[in-house]
């Protein structure tokens, strides 16, 4: 067995600290726009007083963010009727005849080399008044992040809902060439700043964000069997939290960040457990000879929603964190699995299989009404944005990610030339 043991030690696993960078790795593309999205013009910010060229185009980032929301439609830059940078330079009738409801103007000032101040104003074209004005400090390395924050301010001012543009996503990339390689990555929601968290020759699965956005739990097969790790993103420091005999899978962080729900088969077959990450105390939540898996916490942390095939096919159930008799939640369709709860707790997104097609659907908890959100045949891994307005998911048909608005109207695609990407999870508001 010496050879085998040596080989096991040599399996390549690379832990990587995540820093702010600038490279783009994912391609983003709007695949379905929305008629009736509110027209907004974002004029290029004045950078004429800077000593050197600004490395990012703030207005372009803001326009792209707002377009992705499906709620707003940014005017093409080439069609802008004027180029104002201050509200007092704006001739409102020109913007009204260009069909715009809102206008954003701004400028970047340099305090000292590499230290900036970004000022912007959001204007209501019809009422001819300012809705919002902000001034924010920035450094070269966080300019993109600042641009996303501007998108957040504008989106919230217009819609009343907090924006989620300045957050991150995590996902798994699988390279399908001869050297099959699995990479856990995090990236900005627009696909920029993609960073490797873990590289391995063996599968990596089921990333889950800690509620503070600083760590990921995930499953790694690097030892040729599944084990659950928690990894701090900034330092790449990690610890193995579950390596029992049999399955160790589907980690999911409790809302207070103190527990992981997970799946273990050490007592016979796959059941749901909770693990106190500080005391390492394990508690068994379900005990059934069927498959119980894919636990997620209710928003109040008092119950766990999971997939079970105890009825004969996979369906969603809910059980209290102290155990007890699970209650079935889904009845429509032969296959309902991989629940993800909306941040307000009112909706559950899931994989919904019917007539041989697997799509993302959501059920409204109060009424049980089911709405199908997607239209591919192999959709999986739904994950709500932290403001609850979009659902991110993976398309097995194309090996790419999509985000769809919860009304199903707006959709965009994230893809990576280097391989299939899947198992996306949208990080919390504080994930940057």
């Amino acid at each position: 067995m010496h050879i085998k043991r040596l080989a096991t030690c040599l399996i390549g696993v690379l832990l990587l600290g995540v820093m702010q960078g600038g490279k783009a790795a994912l391609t983003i593309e709007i695949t379905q726009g929305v008629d009736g999205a509110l027209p907004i013009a974002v004029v290029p910010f004045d950078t004429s007083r800077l000593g050197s060229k600004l490395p990012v185009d703030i207005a372009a980032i803001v326009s792209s963010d707002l377009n992705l929301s499906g709620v707003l439609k940014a005017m093409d830059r080439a069609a802008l009727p004027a180029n104002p940078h201050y509200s007092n330079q704006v001739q409102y009738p020109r913007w009204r005849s260009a069909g715009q409801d809102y206008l954003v103007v701004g400028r970047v000032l340099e305090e000292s080399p590499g230290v900036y101040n970004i000022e912007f104003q959001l204007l209501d074209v019809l009422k001819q008044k300012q809705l919002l004005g902000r001034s924010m400090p920035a450094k070269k390395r966080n300019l993109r992040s600042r641009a996303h924050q501007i998108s957040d301010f504008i989106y919230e001012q217009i819609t009343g809902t907090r924006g989620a543009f300045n957050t991150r996503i995590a996902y798994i990339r699988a390279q399908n060439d001869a050297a099959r390689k699995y990479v856990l990555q995090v990236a900005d929601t627009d696909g920029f700043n993609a960073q490797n968290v873990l590289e391995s020759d063996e599968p990596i699965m089921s990333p889950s964000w800690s509620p503070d956005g600083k760590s990921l739990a995930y499953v790694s097969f690097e030892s040729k069997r599944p084990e659950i790790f928690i990894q701090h993103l900034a330092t790449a420091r990690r610890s193995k939290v579950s390596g029992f005999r049999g399955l160790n899978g589907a980690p999911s962080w409790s809302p207070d960040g103190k527990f992981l729900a997970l799946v273990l088969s050490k007592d016979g077959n796959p059941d749901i457990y909770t693990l106190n990450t500080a005391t390492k105390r394990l508690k068994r939540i379900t005990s059934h000879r069927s498959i119980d898996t894919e636990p997620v916490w209710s928003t109040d942390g008092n119950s766990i929603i999971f997939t079970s095939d105890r009825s004969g096919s996979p369906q969603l159930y809910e059980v209290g964190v102290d155990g007890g008799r699970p209650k079935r939640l889904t009845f429509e369709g032969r296959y309902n699995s991989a629940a993800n709860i909306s941040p307000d707790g009112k909706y559950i997104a899931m994989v919904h299989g019917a007539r041989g097609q697997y799509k993302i659907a959501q059920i409204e908890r109060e009424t049980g009404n089911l709405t199908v959100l997607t239209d591919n045949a192999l959709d999986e891994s739904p994950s709500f944005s932290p403001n609850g307005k979009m659902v991110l998911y993976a398309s097995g048909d194309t090996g790419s990610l999509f985000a769809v608005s919860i009304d199903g109207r707006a959709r965009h695609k994230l893809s990576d030339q280097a391989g299939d990407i899947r198992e996306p999870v949208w990080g919390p508001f504080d994930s940057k």
Partner: protein
Amino acid sequence: MKANNFIKPWMIAGCLALFISACATTQEEIIEDGPPLDEQSQIGGAGITDDGSGGADASGLDGSEDGGVTAIVDDTPMNAIEMLEQTEGALANRTIYFEFDSAKLTGESIAILETHGNFIAGNGEVSVRLEGHADERGSREYNIALGDRRAQSVRRVLLFQGASTDQIDTVSYGEEKPAAPGHTEEAWARNRRVELIYTVN
């Protein structure tokens, strides 16, 4: 991106195969892992093979040793190894297939596994790793559980034939390591499987 800097694994696998076949070793390591495009029973020198899909897992940096670990032959041939080298018969059949969302064994599969179970029971130096897999449809963690259930179905038959619990190890890869690419019924049928991977100590 970084892959460009790596030596391509097939090069290493090739070199390693040459290197290893030139070595005599007392270590017997039998890795049988259905290569994506071939049935195991058709492989020359069956039973002891270069690990097709394992090699694919290997990174050029180091994992190729793992994927390529193959110690061939031997001046003190053992009975169990000879049996595993046979290219025909139930023992040469080391992949068991399943229906969608099912871990039920067909009569034919049970007959094959009974032969494996008898073999394992009669050869204490043999151990087997059962790797359960699923097709890509549905959710990934559910498919891990399904692959595990399939491996457990196979394990039960082996134990019933008298194999000992410490000779059998199970792991599920769910849909993470497909044997066949593609999104077709044919590919899915080949991916719903349990692979028996033998080691002779």
